[in-house]
């Protein structure tokens, strides 16, 4: 078969997918761009062209700046903790001990639990009057009086981060474990003979095998964490006093609660741009590590 007819055939086979993607992603995205330059409301008239007003207002508003900070704190701390806990758990699961197979199988549980169920579960655990956390901490004497973990601005974000980490570190652990099992036995044995201590062995022998898969996990988790909506909506709806409001929650409020479709659209595109920048930075990182290990 000639090159051109193969290319034509390929395009024909891709046509249904591309048509649907244009209908459900391409067109809405273009429409969001259009809306972002108007003062359109969610219900009613189409709105007037207002130029870059929405963008200027958004970028200079203290609401946006505060929300961006909250989102960054949430993403950086939770992803960092997930990476560290995930690698530690993987190193443990790569050792010999009784019950290893069972424990490995259990690691899939938090990942499999639907996000909303996880959020609901932790909301019950953190319950200010009847929650298990308050009960456990008071019964072992670490807490004098019940606290409202999700109701106080000082503890709400940290409580959310713990719930998010619990669900996501096992995934990192499973990815890291698969990578660890690819490290050849004789290399670790040789490093032992050469007298490498546990830390230098991890740094120079094991880490190079982990780097690639971990960076992929880091990319995906960071992008997810930056877009976070579900867990926060179910646990705090962005409260108390907006202390857990992330960018996606802010867009939801602007576009759907306050029905300002135009300014909601501009905000959504700013979020999209931030995510794209993150992704580009990581793509460069991935390429560089791929080059250095090859």
């Amino acid at each position, binding site marked *: 078969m000639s090159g051109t007819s193969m290319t034509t055939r390929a395009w024909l086979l891709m046509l249904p997918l591309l048509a649907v993607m244009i209908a459900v992603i391409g067109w809405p995205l273009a429409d969001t761009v259009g809306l972002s330059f108007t003062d359109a409301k969610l219900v009613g008239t189409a709105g007037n062209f207002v130029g870059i007003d929405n963008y200027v207002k958004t970028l200079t508003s203290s609401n946006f700046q505060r929300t961006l900070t909250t989102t960054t704190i949430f993403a950086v701390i939770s992803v960092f903790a997930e990476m560290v806990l995930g690698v530690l758990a993987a190193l443990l699961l790569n050792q010999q001990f009784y019950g290893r197979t069972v424990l490995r199988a259990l690691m899939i549980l938090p990942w499999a639990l639907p996000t909303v169920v996880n959020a*609901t579960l932790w909301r019950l655990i953190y319950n200010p009057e009847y929650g298990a956390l308050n009960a456990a901490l008071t019964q072992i004497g670490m807490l004098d009086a019940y606290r409202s973990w999700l109701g106080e601005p000082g503890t709400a974000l940290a409580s959310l981060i713990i719930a998010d980490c619990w669900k996501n570190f096992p995934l990192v652990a499973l990815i890291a474990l698969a990578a660890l099992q690819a490290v050849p036995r004789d290399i670790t044995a040789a490093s032992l003979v050469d007298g490498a201590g546990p830390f230098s062995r991890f740094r120079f022998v094991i880490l190079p095998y982990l780097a690639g898969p971990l960076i992929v996990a880091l990319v995906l988790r960071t992008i997810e964490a930056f877009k976070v909506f579900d867990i926060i909506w179910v646990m705090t709806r962005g409260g108390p006093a907006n202390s857990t409001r992330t960018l996606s929650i802010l867009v939801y409020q602007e576009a759907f609660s306050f029905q300002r479709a135009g300014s909601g659209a501009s905000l959504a595109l700013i979020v999209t741009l931030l995510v794209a920048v993150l992704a580009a930075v990581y793509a460069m990182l991935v390429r560089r590590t791929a080059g250095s290990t090859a």
Partner: protein
Amino acid sequence: MERKSFLFSFFLHACALLLAVIILAPVLWLFIMSISPAADLTAKPLVWWPQAVDFSRYATLLSSVENSAGAAFVASLTNSILVAGMATIAALALAIPAAWAVSRTPSVGWSLYMVIATYMLPPVALAVPLYFGLAHLGLLNSVFGLALVYLTILAPFTTWLMKSGFDAIPREIEAAAMMDGAGLFATLRIITLPLAAPVMATSALFAFLLAWDEFFYALLFTSDLRAKTLTVAIADLAGGRVSDYGLIATAGVLAALPPVVIGLVMQRALISGLTSGGVKG
């Protein structure tokens, strides 16, 4: 392996125990809440283990008596199965030909990367136009409308997984069949698709789980029992005035059951999928 000191072995087992407790405690507590009498859950000090095991909430939620909590739950369960099932089938139907084409014709690969790049788009970037579009088509609060929207997530994802699946099937096998006179579609049907069956199954499971887990679009585009999915129903329970925490926990256990069973049974296939393609958390 090398000799290990007793102390090291003790340390390992202690860490393993700690990890097991961290993983299991919250899940077990969800289950215990679902079978504890309501009074135990609001007692001070908290009753950690029920005096009498009470499975009645499962019967309540799975009953179909009209206008009961059960009817609402069963309706949302049905909606979740319908939406996730339809979206998965549609996503695979779109992804398989496209993924095969890209796998065999690298010169068109750039279009696939554009499709995959849409995975990064935050759903909020599409939500407002999708809302207008569905309203225009009369598909707000409809399982069909929601399934259509879920293609924004499922189609790029399954295409990505299927493409790496087809890449692993040597094209020489296809060439040999064609040499023997089989046409393109006969070759695909007899040779390629059976070989790709395992990766198709993995992709279908991942897609189903993604749709089962989805909350944001379901929250926006559904409003009552006709289309509300489980995730929205559970969020309603959690945020509402339900006084029996055990009932919320029971709904959570039931919603978690399908993905947990799939996860445990299909562990090996899922992990190889996770490591080959990476996956949404």
